[in-house]
């Protein structure tokens, strides 16, 4: 996750609406005075430490930052946009200190302390971010936070559902727990990146092309790999291990071609719009809208169309479906294409939600997808939807109580607890678990 955005997204938004206007006025006032600040020092050096000091999306101006390490010290203050940068003579470990005295009244460093030890990676720039929070935690409106997290969780749950339905349908029709689904998710985001940023197409067109290519990837994988293996009569567990090998190979193939860095899709940094306590960017709203429409479409497909009904029949009992004259291989092919296309779309939305496109982004989400599918009941499409929303809400809401770097732990613990008490999942039937 890009640190800056993490900071923005997860900083506790504790101000009541009343204060927002006041704060805006306050920032406007400081804006005019601040231009005299020197925000960048040590520009003669090749390596740069930099950061962005913001609280509730508002840039904080005039915050003192000091760097110490490798026998070199320097300090600076943030500019009107909250930005600072300090050049350093060599790569290595530096201690970056934020002077809490210079923060506005009522704002403190919330987590991780005001001193951060940082080390350069492969690049010449390293960003250092502090997590700011309100100084007096008693004034927090818990309800406002809850509502905001709830909406974010719903957004996350919906995009998880897009991927989870594919996993669930593939499991239902073929018995395969497809670990390579993670790479199908990444594929959608990477293709969008290639067509929008590298080839300069408009973003909506790039997304459509990426989804179409994802569907083709699903078709190709089924035709080249899975169908011959089914023909060969390979059992379910070896198939699963093959999917792990495929996942590993594809993931590092992506890294081979795209490198280890994180890139942003166009429009990723849009500012949030506030509706009462809820703050959402236009992208978030579009993401939720698209997810809901697509999920309704999938539901219509499964419940009302002939092929959808055939899919559910195969998912229920492949041999019986085959005996009733359903083309099982054809259904499985459609499931792979639809599942891969949904995974591709989910990857695009995940790239906006995290935010950023990277080679292992799908793999970061895979366990949550599996948790969602297991929670809903393996092999049931609507169970996957419910499970996803539960997992999405749980991940976001749990950050109200536990540190945000442990938010996935909560979701995975819930997975284990559900298996303890209701192993068939929310919508699963008992005989499935055999």
């Amino acid at each position: 996750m890009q640190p800056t955005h993490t900071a923005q997204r997860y900083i506790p938004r504790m101000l009541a609406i009343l204060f927002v206007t006041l704060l805006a006025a306050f920032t406007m006032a400081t804006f005019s005075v601040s231009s005299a600040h020197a925000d960048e020092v040590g520009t003669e050096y090749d390596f740069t430490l930099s950061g962005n000091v913001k609280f509730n999306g508002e840039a904080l101006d005039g915050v003192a930052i000091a760097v110490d390490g490798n026998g070199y010290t320097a300090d600076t203050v943030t500019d009107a946009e909250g930005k600072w940068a300090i050049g350093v003579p060599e790569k290595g470990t530096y201690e970056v200190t934020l002077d809490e005295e210079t923060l506005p009244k009522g704002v403190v460093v919330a987590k991780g302390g005001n001193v951060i030890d940082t080390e350069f990676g492969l690049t010449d720039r390293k960003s250092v971010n502090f997590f700011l929070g309100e100084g007096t935690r008693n004034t927090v409106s818990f309800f406002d936070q809850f509502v905001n997290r709830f909406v974010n969780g719903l957004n996350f749950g919906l995009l998880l559902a897009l991927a989870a339905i594919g996993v669930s349908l593939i499991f239902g029709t073929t018995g395969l727990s497809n670990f390579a689904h993670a790479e199908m998710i990444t594929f959608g985001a990477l293709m969008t990146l290639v067509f929008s940023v590298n080839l300069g197409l408009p973003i909506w067109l790039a997304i459509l092309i990426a989804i179409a290519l994802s569907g083709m990837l699903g078709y190709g994988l089924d035709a080249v790999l899975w169908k011959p293996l089914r023909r060969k009569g390979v059992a379910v567990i070896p198939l699963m291990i093959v999917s792990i090998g495929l996942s590993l190979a594809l993931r590092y193939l992506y890294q081979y071609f795209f490198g280890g860095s994180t890139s942003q899709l166009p429009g990723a940094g849009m500012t949030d719009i506030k509706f009462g306590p809820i703050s959402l960017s236009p992208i978030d709203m579009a993401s939720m809208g698209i997810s809901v429409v697509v999920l309704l479409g999938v539901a219509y497909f499964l419940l009302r169309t002939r092929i959808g009904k055939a899919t559910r029949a195969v998912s229920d009992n492949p041999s019986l479906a085959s005996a009733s004259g359903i083309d099982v291989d054809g259904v499985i092919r459609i499931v792979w294409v639809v599942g891969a296309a949904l995974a591709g779309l989910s990857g695009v939305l995940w790239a906006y939600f995290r935010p950023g496109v990277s080679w292992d982004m799908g793999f970061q989400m895979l366990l949550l997808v599996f948790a969602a599918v297991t929670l809903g009941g393996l092999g049931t499409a609507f169970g996957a939807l419910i499970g996803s929303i539960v997992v999405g809400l749980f991940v976001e809401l749990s950050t109200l109580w536990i540190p945000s770097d442990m938010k996935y732990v909560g979701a995975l613990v819930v997975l284990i607890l559900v298996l303890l008490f209701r192993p068939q999942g929310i919508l699963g039937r008992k005989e499935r678990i055999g």
Partner: protein
Amino acid sequence: MDWGAIFSNAAVELISPTTAAYALAALGLAVHFGYTGLLNFGQAGFMALGAYGYAISILTFGFPVWGAFLVGVGASVVFALILGIPTLRLRADYLAIVTIAAAEIVRLLFTTNTFASVTGSANGLSGYKNEFAALNPLAEGSYGFGPFENNAYDTWLRIVAWSIVILAALLVWQVMRSPWGRVIKGIREDEDAVRALGKNVYAYKMQSLIFGGVLGTIAGMIFALPRAVVPSNYQTTLTFFIYAILLLGGAATVLGPIIGSMIFWVLLSFFSGFVARAVEAGWLPFMTAIQGGQLRFILVGVAIMLIVIFRPQGIFGNKKELAFVR
């Protein structure tokens, strides 16, 4: 092209402590997957518990080596119980999903900043080697020959690591020949038949999970001794590599995991050395040095697929005793 360096670097891996650690972890997985048919995808979690259990006991609590060893083993027994209770009654793929999730939970708990004072969060832990080095009976100086020449500490580490691997292999071999082992293999072949004979399948599976998990934990300690403990080493990819080794050697064999680990590391080192130098020499103009490093992971993935499809019993395996649960 410096072939000598490539070959000697590859030869070093033959008896390196890392190879021993992977061999032992794969042996534990052979008990789970090969003999019992348990689909454990959380071996990285067992290894992490061993490494952290050992390091934290020494650094935070000042335990002696044997105490730290017991703490790691104890932690992995508790972990195996937590994993086994909800899942061992369920179908195999549930265990797979729960173990992979549990291993990630362990890694995330060691990574989070919340416990940084004990776990060192993302930077991990180091400086726990002195206690182990103090037990070294060897005098200062270098031992061995050619690529296998090492200083006293490294030689001591290799002797201990491989002794443990050999002891563990003998133990697994004997245990699998015993009545207990026959029940375990019976569970893999047909759980219901074993249950019909009046055996408590659940208890046997739990014992197997603990046994293999403890082997994985000891492997984690061996893995930690030549390096620092860093949480990013214990990602799911580690488990997948151990699976690759196990499948290469043969899942339901004793020698398979050990020879598999040697082949895996020697080939991997040879391949990386060759690609890195070929890139340097300009033989592969379309590739950068970093890309060359990633090529081997792609290769491991492809190798896993090919082995499972074309030789599922591995090098030493017996096709009749095919280790895949249905």
